[in-house]
C-alpha cells in the first residue's frame, strides 16, 4: 500500500505542477517574446476629433488618433496601472517637506518632430496654457489644477510647480493623458495653433488627416526611447456607428478598436475570428448617472429625488444589463474595485443600493405620497441619442420608475441640444455620464459640487456642505482620514439629498486580433494610447 500511496502522491504533484506551470509558461512566453519591428496598425475610432488640441477636448475621438504624436510630463505605467512614471520628466521627482513644491527634472535629448529640443520652457508654457489659459483659449481641465500657484523653469531641464495648498491628487493629475507637451515658441506666437495643427515629441510623426475618413502617422526616428516605437505606421479610421465598426474589426479592416465593445459585439468578433481573437476586459472608470433638476418642482424636494433612486434595482440591472450592454458594476461615487470604493456592506445601506428592492420601492411610494406626488405623475427624461449604453439605461430606468407609479416620457436628443438643455436647466431628469482617466476623488466628485463652483454639475443645486467636504478630502494625505470624509460626501450626495445618483459603472471589453501585441487594457480608455509599446505579431 505504501509505494502505491507514494506514487499516487507523486502523480498528483506532477499534475499540479504541470497545471501550475502552464499559465506561467504562457505569461513568461508572452513577456519574453521579442517584439517585432515594422508594419502598420489600423484601428477604428468611433468618432472624429472636434479639434486637435488635447487641452481643450474631452473626447477619446481626439485622444486615440492624436496621443501617438505627443509626450506628457508624467504617464501611467500601462503594465502596472495606476503606477505613475515619468514621460518627458525623469522617473524620480522631489516634493518639498511642506508638500507645496514639486520639482521635476526633464530628460535630456528629447526632440520635437521639427528637430528642436524639448526643454522645461515647453513644459512651463504647456501647463501655463492649461492652468492659466489666455482669454479666448479653452482649457477643459483647468479646474483640476486650481491648487497650482505658479510654474517655474529655473533651468532648461528643471520645472517647479508651486502649490497654494497640499493636494492629494496633484501628481496623478500631472499624468493626465490630455496634457500634451506643446512647443513654447509656437504657443507664444499663437496659443490656438494646436487646435488645427500637430507637432509634438511623441513616438509617431503626423502624416495625414482626411476629415471624417482616416488619420495616419509614421514612426518618429528621433523618439527619446531609442528602441521605440515598434510600428512603422499607424492608421486610425473613423467609423461612427457601432455595427460598421464591429464589421471593420471582424473583417480585419481594423485590427482593434481601443474604446471597447459591448458583449454582443464581442461575441460576434470572437465567433468570426476564432483563434485569431483575443479579448481584454477591465472595469471602466465610466458611469451613467441620473441627474435631476433640483430647481423644478417636485424635484426640489429631496424626498422625491430619494424615491427616484430607491426605485432602481441596481443589483438586478447589473445581472441583466451586463449581458447586453457596457453597464455592469454596482457602485457609489467611486469605481467598484478601486481604492476609494465603498465596501458592499456599507454601500447597501445607501438609498437605492439595498438588495431588498421591494422594501426600497415601498419606501419610495411612501416618500412620493408624503411629498404630494400623485400616482401616474408624468415627467420627461432627457437622454443622449446614443444607443449604447444611453438608450439601454434609459429604457431600464423608465421601467423601474413605472414600478413606483411614475410615468416617464423618454426624449432622446443629439449631443448639441442635449447638453444645451442640461446647461440651461431645460429638463426634469436626465441620463448623464462621467468618464475619467484615473480613480481620483478630486476628479470623480467634481460633478457633485455646487453648480456655482462646478460647470459639470447640471443638477442646478448649491450645497456648501458638499463643497466643504470636497475641499477637506482634497487636502488630506492620510488615506484613512480621506476615506472617512469621502464616505460622508457619498452619503450626503446619494442618500440624504440624492441630487444625482449612479445607475451602474461600465465594463470595458476590447476584443481584437491576436496580431496586436504590447497593448494592455486599463480601466480608462484615455490611458495608454501613444502606441509606443504596440507591435504586430
Amino acid at each position, binding site marked *: 500500500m505504501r509505494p502505491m500511496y507514494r506514487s499516487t502522491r507523486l502523480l498528483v504533484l506532477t499534475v499540479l505542477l504541470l497545471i501550475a506551470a502552464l499559465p506561467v509558461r504562457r505569461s513568461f512566453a508572452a513577456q519574453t517574446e521579442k517584439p517585432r519591428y515594422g508594419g502598420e496598425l489600423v484601428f477604428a475610432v468611433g468618432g472624429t476629433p472636434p479639434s486637435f488640441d488635447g487641452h481643450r477636448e474631452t473626447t477619446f475621438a481626439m485622444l486615440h488618433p492624436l496621443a501617438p504624436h505627443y509626450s506628457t510630463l508624467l504617464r501611467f505605467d500601462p503594465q502596472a496601472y495606476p503606477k505613475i512614471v515619468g514621460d518627458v520628466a525623469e522617473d524620480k521627482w522631489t516634493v518639498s517637506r511642506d508638500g507645496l513644491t514639486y520639482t521635476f527634472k526633464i530628460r535630456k535629448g528629447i526632440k520635437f518632430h521639427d528637430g528642436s529640443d524639448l526643454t522645461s520652457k515647453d513644459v512651463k508654457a504647456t501647463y501655463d496654457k492649461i492652468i492659466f489659459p489666455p482669454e479666448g483659449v479653452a482649457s477643459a481641465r483647468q479646474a483640476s489644477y486650481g491648487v497650482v500657484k505658479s510654474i517655474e523653469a529655473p533651468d532648461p531641464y528643471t520645472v517647479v510647480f508651486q502649490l497654494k495648498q497640499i493636494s492629494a491628487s496633484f501628481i496623478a493629475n500631472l499624468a493626465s493623458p490630455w496634457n500634451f507637451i506643446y512647443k513654447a515658441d509656437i504657443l507664444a506666437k499663437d496659443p490656438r495653433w494646436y487646435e488645427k495643427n500637430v507637432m509634438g515629441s511623441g513616438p509617431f510623426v503626423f502624416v495625414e488627416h482626411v476629415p471624417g475618413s482616416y488619420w495616419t502617422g509614421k514612426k518618429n526616428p528621433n523618439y527619446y526611447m531609442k528602441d521605440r516605437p515598434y510600428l512603422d505606421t499607424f492608421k486610425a479610421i473613423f467609423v461612427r456607428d457601432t455595427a460598421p465598426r464591429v464589421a471593420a474589426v471582424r473583417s480585419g479592416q481594423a485590427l482593434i478598436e481601443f474604446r471597447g465593445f*459591448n458583449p*454582443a459585439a464581442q461575441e460576434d468578433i470572437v465567433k468570426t475570428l476564432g483563434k485569431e481573437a483575443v479579448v481584454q476586459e477591465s472595469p471602466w472608470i465610466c458611469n451613467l448617472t441620473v441627474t435631476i433638476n433640483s430647481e423644478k418642482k417636485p424635484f426640489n424636494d429631496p424626498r422625491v429625488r430619494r424615491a427616484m433612486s430607491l426605485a432602481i434595482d441596481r443589483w438586478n440591472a447589473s445581472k*441583466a444589463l451586463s449581458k447586453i450592454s457596457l453597464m455592469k458594476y454596482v457602485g457609489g461615487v467611486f469605481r467598484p474595485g478601486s481604492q476609494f470604493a465603498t465596501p458592499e456592506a456599507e454601500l447597501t445601506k445607501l438609498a437605492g443600493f439595498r438588495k431588498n428592492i421591494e422594501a426600497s420601492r415601498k419606501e419610495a411610494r411612501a416618500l412620493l405620497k408624503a411629498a404630494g406626488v400623485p400616482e401616474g405623475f408624468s415627467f420627461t427624461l432627457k437622454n443622449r441619442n446614443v444607443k*449604447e449604453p444611453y*438608450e439601454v439605461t434609459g*429604457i431600464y430606468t423608465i*421601467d423601474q420608475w413605472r414600478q413606483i407609479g411614475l410615468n416617464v416620457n423618454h*426624449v*432622446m436628443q443629439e449631443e448639441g*441640444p442635449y447638453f444645451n438643455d442640461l446647461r440651461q436647466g431645460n429638463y426634469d431628469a436626465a441620463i448623464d455620464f462621467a468618464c475619467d482617466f484615473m480613480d481620483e476623488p478630486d476628479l470623480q466628485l467634481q460633478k457633485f459640487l455646487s453648480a456655482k463652483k462646478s460647470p459639470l454639475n447640471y443638477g442646478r443645486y448649491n450645497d456648501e456642505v458638499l463643497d466643504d467636504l470636497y475641499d477637506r478630502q482634497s487636502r488630506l494625505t492620510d488615506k484613512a482620514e480621506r476615506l472617512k470624509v469621502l464616505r460622508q460626501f457619498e452619503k450626503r450626495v446619494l442618500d440624504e439629498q440624492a441630487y444625482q445618483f449612479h445607475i451602474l459603472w461600465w465594463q470595458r471589453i476590447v476584443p481584437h486580433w491576436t496580431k496586436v501585441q504590447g497593448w494592455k487594457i486599463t480601466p480608462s480608455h484615455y490611458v495608454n494610447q501613444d502606441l509606443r509599446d504596440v507591435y504586430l505579431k
Partner: protein
Amino acid sequence: MTMAQETARAARTRASGRRIRAWLRVALRFARRRPLGAAGALIILVMLAAAVLAGFIAPYDPLTTDYAAMLQAPSAPHWLGTDAFGRDVLSRIIYGSRTALIVGFCASFLGASLGTVMGVASAYFGGKTDLIVQRFMDLLLSFPLIVLALVVVAVLGTGTLNVILAIMVPMIPRAALVARSSALSLRETPFIDAARALGFGHARIIFRHLLPNVMAPYLILLTAFLGQAILLEASLSFLGLGVAEPVPAWGLMLSGAAVEFAERAPWMAIFPGIAISVSVFAFNLFGDSLRDALDPKLRVS
C-alpha cells in the same frame, strides 16, 4: 309612443338596414371585382382591430421588462419571442400598430387635406397666386421624401407630434399637384361660372363646389400616402429620429438591439419587418384598387 312615431322609427330602421345592405353589396362587388384590393382592405381592418383592441388581445404589457426572459426564441409563452429586455415581441407589434396607424393616419390625412386645399385654391385663383404656390411646391418636391422629413425632425426635434409633422410636410406638395390638375379643368366648367355669377364667395366655391369634385383623387392619395407614411415613420424611428424607446413602434423595434443581436435573436428584427412590409403592401393594394374603382376611365375600360 304614438302610431306616427312608431311608423317613423320603423321607416328609419328599414332605411338604415337598406343602407347597410347597400354598403355590403358595394363591398362584395369590390371584393369580387378586385380581390387583391379586398385582401388589402382585410389586412387594414385586422390592423385597425389590433390597434383598437391592443389592450385586450396583447398577451403582455409591451413596456414590461422581464430580464429572466431576455432574447427568448419564439415559444408557447412568447409566440414571436422576446427582445433584449425580455419584452414580448408580439405584444410590442400589436401595440406598435397603434403608433403606425396614429402617425400614418394623422400625417397622411393632414398632408393630403392641406395639399388638396392648397392645390384647389391655387388652381381656382390662378395667375400670380398659382405661380407662387406652385413654385413653392416645386421647391418642396425637389427634396426626396425622407430628406425633407429628416430636415423637419432635425429642426423640430423628435417625438410623436413632430414625426407627424415631419411626414406631413413632404406630402403636401404631392397632394397639391394632383388636386390642382383636377381643379384646373373643374374651374372652367359652367357650374363654377354659375356659382360665380350668383355671387358666391371664393371660400364657398372652393369648399362647397370644387373640393367635393376632387374627392376621388383625394381618397386615392390618402390611401397611397398611408402606406408611405407608415414606412416613413418606421424609417425615422429606425434612424433614431422618430418616437423614442420604450414606446412600441415597428421601426424602433428594427433598430438598436435588433441590429446588435441580429444573428443571435433574428426574430427581434424579422417580425416587426414583416409587420411593416405587410401593412405597406396592404395599403398599396387597397389604394391601387380604390384608384381603379374610382377612376372613370379605368371603370369604362
